[in-house]
């Protein structure tokens, strides 16, 4: 018996079987060859043609169907037009503790609601071509992720600016940056930065700031390909596949899609997973090499190992997530022969890298890792924000974020319980893969969010399996019935994604103030800020000492709150003409204090008043959004 026939028989007992199977042999939404699947045959077809009789011709369109089809087609361009119109005059300077949520006009929200409605209409119609569904998803990505890029005058988010500084430093030093301090972690996982260094040097571009702003929409759009391959490997039901895609983007509120190694590594991670699921014998897609009974085609395995190597050199956490996922996928026999070779490669490459290039970081942090192994409860709780002094809006945002994450977890679990066939797909294992890491490492308090992100692709599918089951007799009313829930998910995402934009958004004046400091501060200078929220101030980080007052010891913070001048002077005393200190106060830092409550809000104003008359401090730069003081310790009187 050929491998192909053997596979078809296996599928009859696999995910395609059972009463609630997603792609059974009977005609149902999403069945290959049925009108719902205009994209060709599936694995149930024999090598010489479809395994069953030709599908019946699609029923004639009724008037209502025609209206619905054209409505779905009109809503897409209409909602995109409304979205772009809504961005004409957004008062960014009025952002406070709800960020963009409180300044975007009703037209924006109308566009978002309309887009979701149009998608549900399109999703419910089995004749909708994939191009329309792709258009809807890309429009959603643009609406969510391109809005800040289109509105802001410059790159958003302080960490994105830090990464630009790392690329610049690596280019200047030809690789490892000496005296990098807290930035030394980037020396140990330099892949992403050196890729961009290669691009900048070969094109002759001065900086990545021009295209870094567009990373969120493009990074999310690129994820569409592995997501579709992953989901289509599990089911041929288009409604479920595209529903899962929409749910993924509607629930991906964590914001790890900016100009950063993790967004790059996440794309590579999902690609490896999509390739692996595609090669499974139970894959709903035609396998690239169906004569192969099990395991990887050797060439493709080499390609996958190359991708894994790129992950290993680019980001510390993603290889661990990959290893965890592959280890779990090695448990069931059906995926073992695919997962084990990649698992071995990932473990060996990670171990070699961590023992050589990343050894300095690993050896310093191994104690913390061992300590965290004994305190798993602390790792889990460290991701939950301390809300003591946060602004009221932030408390609301935090609850909405938690609510959305919990809803995804509960719905995914319900999907797993209610749709039994999903248990045989491997996706539950993929969703559970981050859990072991959640128990062993706090990752700077972010592990909970990172675990959510890595679990989301699989969890979104389980949610879609629950909400959009393939056997629904009247798919249009059924799909419209879940519209409020999908709309609520998208709405909740805006809270998490846009709620902190008052801090993440910068004006050109703030950039100008930072540039002034970087250009004038001699090597060895100390640069003091209240928080980290000053764009481009980390340029030349290896020659400057940085002090962020809000993140010092509690005793130092108390001194600062009691007497701001004394609190600052304690960190800069001894500054000389050759090695002066600079104090940078700016709008986004004030907003951070207000939003997060890291320090009492009035500290900034009191500090500025104190510095204006203080000995040794000179106001050297000022604009509407920032002020820079230079300090040299005066001689004793």
């Amino acid at each position, binding site marked *: 018996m050929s491998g*192909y026939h053997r596979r078809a028989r296996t599928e009859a007992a696999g995910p395609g079987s059972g009463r609630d199977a997603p792609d059974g042999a009977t005609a149902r939404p999403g069945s290959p060859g049925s009108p719902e699947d205009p994209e060709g045959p599936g694995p149930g077809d024999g090598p010489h043609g479809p395994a069953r009789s030709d599908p019946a011709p699609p029923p004639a369109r009724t008037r209502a169907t025609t209206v619905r089809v054209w409505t779905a087609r009109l809503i897409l361009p209409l909602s995109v037009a409304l979205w772009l119109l809504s961005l004409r005059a957004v008062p960014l300077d009025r952002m406070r503790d709800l960020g963009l949520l409180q300044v975007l006009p009703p037209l924006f929200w109308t566009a978002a609601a309309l887009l979701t409605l149009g998608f549900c209409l399109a999703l419910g119609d089995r004749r909708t071509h994939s191009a329309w569904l792709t258009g809807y998803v890309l429009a959603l990505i643009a609406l969510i992720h391109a809005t800040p890029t289109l509105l802001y005058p410059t790159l958003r988010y302080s960490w994105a600016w830090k990464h630009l500084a790392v690329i610049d430093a690596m280019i200047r030093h030809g690789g490892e940056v000496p005296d990098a301090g807290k930035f030394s972690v980037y020396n140990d996982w330099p892949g992403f930065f050196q890729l961009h260094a290669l691009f900048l040097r070969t094109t002759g571009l001065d900086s990545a700031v021009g295209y870094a702003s567009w990373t969120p929409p493009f990074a999310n759009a690129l994820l569409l390909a592995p997501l579709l391959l992953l989901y289509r490997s599990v089911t041929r039901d288009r409604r479920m596949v595209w529903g899962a895609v929409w749910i993924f983007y509607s629930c991906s509120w964590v914001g790890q899609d900016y100009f950063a190694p993790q967004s790059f590594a996440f794309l590579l991670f999902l690609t490896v997973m999509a390739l692996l699921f595609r090669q499974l014998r139970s894959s709903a897609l035609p396998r690239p090499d169906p004569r192969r009974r099990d395991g990887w085609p050797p060439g493709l395995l080499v390609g996958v190992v190359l991708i894994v190597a790129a992950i290993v050199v680019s980001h510390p956490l993603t290889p661990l997530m990959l290893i965890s996922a592959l280890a779990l996928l090695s448990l069931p026999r059906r995926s073992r022969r695919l997962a084990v070779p990649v698992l071995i490669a990932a473990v060996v490459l990670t171990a070699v890298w961590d023992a050589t290039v990343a050894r300095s970081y690993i050896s310093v942090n191994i104690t913390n890792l061992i300590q965290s192994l004994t305190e798993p409860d602390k790792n889990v709780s460290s991701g939950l924000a301390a809300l003591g002094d946060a602004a009221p809006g932030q408390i609301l945002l935090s609850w909405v974020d938690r609510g959305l994450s919990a809803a995804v977890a509960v719905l995914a679990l319900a999907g797993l319980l209610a749709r039994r066939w999903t248990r045989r797909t491997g996706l539950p294992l993929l969703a559970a893969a981050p859990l072991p890491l959640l128990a062993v490492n706090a990752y700077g308090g972010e592990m909970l969010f990172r675990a959510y992100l890595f679990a989301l692709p699989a969890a979104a599918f389980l949610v879609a399996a629950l909400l959009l089951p393939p056997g629904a007799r009247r798919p249009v009313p059924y799909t419209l019935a879940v519209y409020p829930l999908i709309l609520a998910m998208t709405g909740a995402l805006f809270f998490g994604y846009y709620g902190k934009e008052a801090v993440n958004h910068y004006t050109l004046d703030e950039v100008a103030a930072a540039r002034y400091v970087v250009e004038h501060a001699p090597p060895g200078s100390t640069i003091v800020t209240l928080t980290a929220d000053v764009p481009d101030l980390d340029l030349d980080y290896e020659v400057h000492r940085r002090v962020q007052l809000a993140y010092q010891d509690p005793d130092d913070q108390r001194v600062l709150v009691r007497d701001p001048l004394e609190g600052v002077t304690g960190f800069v005393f001894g500054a000389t003409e050759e090695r002066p200190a600079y104090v940078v106060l700016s709008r986004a830092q004030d907003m951070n204090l207000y939003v997060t409550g890291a320090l009492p809000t009035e500290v900034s104003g009191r500090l500025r008043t104190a510095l204006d008359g203080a000995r040794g401090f000179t106001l050297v730069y000022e604009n509407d959004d920032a002020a820079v003081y230079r300090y040299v310790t005066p001689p004793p009187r």
Partner: protein
Amino acid sequence: MTPLRPVLAVSGWLALLASVTLPDAAPVRVAAVTAFLLVCPGHAALLALRPARTRRSGHPADRLETALLTLVLGLALATLVAVTLFLCGVFTATRSLLVLAALTSVLALLPHRSGARNRDSRVHAG
């Protein structure tokens, strides 16, 4: 041999030529290098690593996988070349493009197994 392979084989050298002869940030230079980095090493690797029979089913998923692998393999190769050159302390723009161009040429011109495609094409008919 399809025309694609010779085109891929020379693409890196054209990008290198653009990089060393055109001024910094010239639009043609940026376009040539960007197109090369995003498409050519990855597609050449795909041609070399994945047998022809697995690329020709005509299924949309195959086209999607080819596009994804082209991009991701290209980015992975560029990353690994950059990291290797930086770790060895010998990184320059010219060297990095030189290595990638040579790699792309070798991968694109590797002899591929003809015949396998014909034997297997029936599997993906339709």
